[in-house]
């Protein structure tokens, strides 16, 4: 994002809206710190500027900086990866797609959230750790999949590593036998990540919204606890195409 200095009246109204905290005063005008900016467009979308000084930066769609927008602006689609959004439909349409079938587990690691944002080098820290543990089942429909230069090492394409985004999601589909390894690897790499990440697992339910005991046993055995609120697919969808 860019704020045109000659137009800005220095009211500062835009500053608290920036999730990156990238807008500050300079010479009595608001200025976007370009390294910190995620290009999420929030400052523009809320239309808070009284003089229309906020605009998309002319470089916003230049690769690799365009990755910032695609991973941070909820209104943007992935022109670079060809895939819409930060992640996939994952559990939301699983009653129709059956991508995660009975007895299988999905894992999602959203790096940068809540709040902190992250450099794409943090994604590489995790994909490398997963690769070292022999875990390479990254969801092919997820944008991260196409960003990996070498699946054997988990290395991302080198030109991406300096980009900073609000968040990105690493998604995996694993068998119950593999889940303990995945959780152990994620726990170990947490100390190397220069941000935060949320971790979630998804699976098909048993009748009566009963969470499979096998999943809970694995989660507990690996020292994790789960929150009392969850995202639940109500089973009302069906394929019709």
């Amino acid at each position: 994002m860019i704020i045109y200095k000659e137009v800005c009246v220095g009211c500062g109204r835009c500053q608290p809206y920036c999730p990156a905290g990238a807008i500050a005063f300079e010479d009595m005008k608001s200025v976007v710190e370009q390294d910190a900016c995620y290009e999420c467009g929030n400052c523009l979308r809320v239309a808070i500027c009284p003089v229309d000084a906020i605009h998309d930066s002319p470089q916003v769609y230049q690769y690799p900086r365009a990755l910032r927008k695609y991973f941070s602006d909820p209104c943007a689609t992935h022109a670079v990866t060809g895939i819409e959004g930060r992640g996939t439909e994952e559990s939301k349409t699983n009653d129709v797609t059956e991508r995660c079938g009975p007895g299988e587990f999905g894992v999602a690691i959203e790096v940068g959230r809540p709040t902190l944002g992250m450099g794409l080098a943090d994604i590489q820290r995790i994909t490398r750790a997963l690769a070292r543990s022999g875990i390479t089942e990254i969801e092919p429909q997820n944008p991260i999949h196409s960003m990996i230069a070498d699946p054997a090492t988990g290395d991302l394409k080198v030109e991406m590593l300096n980009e900073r985004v609000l968040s990105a999601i690493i998604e995996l589909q694993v068998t119950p036998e593999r889940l303990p390894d995945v959780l152990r690897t994620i726990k170990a790499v947490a100390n190397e990540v220069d941000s935060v990440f949320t971790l979630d697992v998804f699976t098909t339910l048993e009748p009566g919204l009963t969470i499979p005991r096998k999943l809970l046993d694995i989660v507990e055995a690996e020292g994790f606890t789960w929150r009392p609120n969850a995202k639940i697919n109500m089973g009302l969808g069906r394929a019709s195409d």
Partner: protein
Amino acid sequence: MTHSLHREGTIDSLERDYALFIYPARGFNYKGCAPKVRRLVEIVYQAGPVNMIATTLRHNLYSGVRPEEVLDSIKEGSRVFSVFNNREGIKEALKGFKAADEGISIVVSGLIDRVREIALEIGLDPHTINISLGVHGGTDRLPPPDIRQFTTMCGHGMVSPLLVRDVIRRINSGKISSWDGSLVLAKPCACGIYNPHRSAELLEELTPLYTVARR
């Protein structure tokens, strides 16, 4: 959207917070789904949501979109997200969805026990669950949990902790009310699941406890 399952707060507060997603599946039921989604949105309106967005508009009910514009904007593949501030409302919507039987995926984010009760009461058998195993990494750098109760109400992270602090400061200095402050926080949410009623309650509770200076 993934973050609707990472909403933070007390159980008492989360009892009044249920996010609802109407989600056609790309490649599986996109064809001809627009009238089905529109019918489901009409059912949502009848149940009394407290916020809503359609992916075609990307502005929620507190950022300049009228309810009828949401309906008019729906086309093939549109997804619609909303939020309810009470158990009865989400139950009414689900009852309507079951009766309508449009075959579109419906997702509810909320307390597992409450959703289980509702599903049993209306005879639904949920299919898949996505469970949060928490936040990891440099958690000491996060804003405090009080602030995160607000920021995690936007599923895309568009509500900045700086804005929450700014709103608390403005309420404390008598410039705006808790409800108006809540609407300021709802405006940036580009996924339509920021719950302004819950947010106003939280602001009422928290603002007397905080002194927030302009940075």
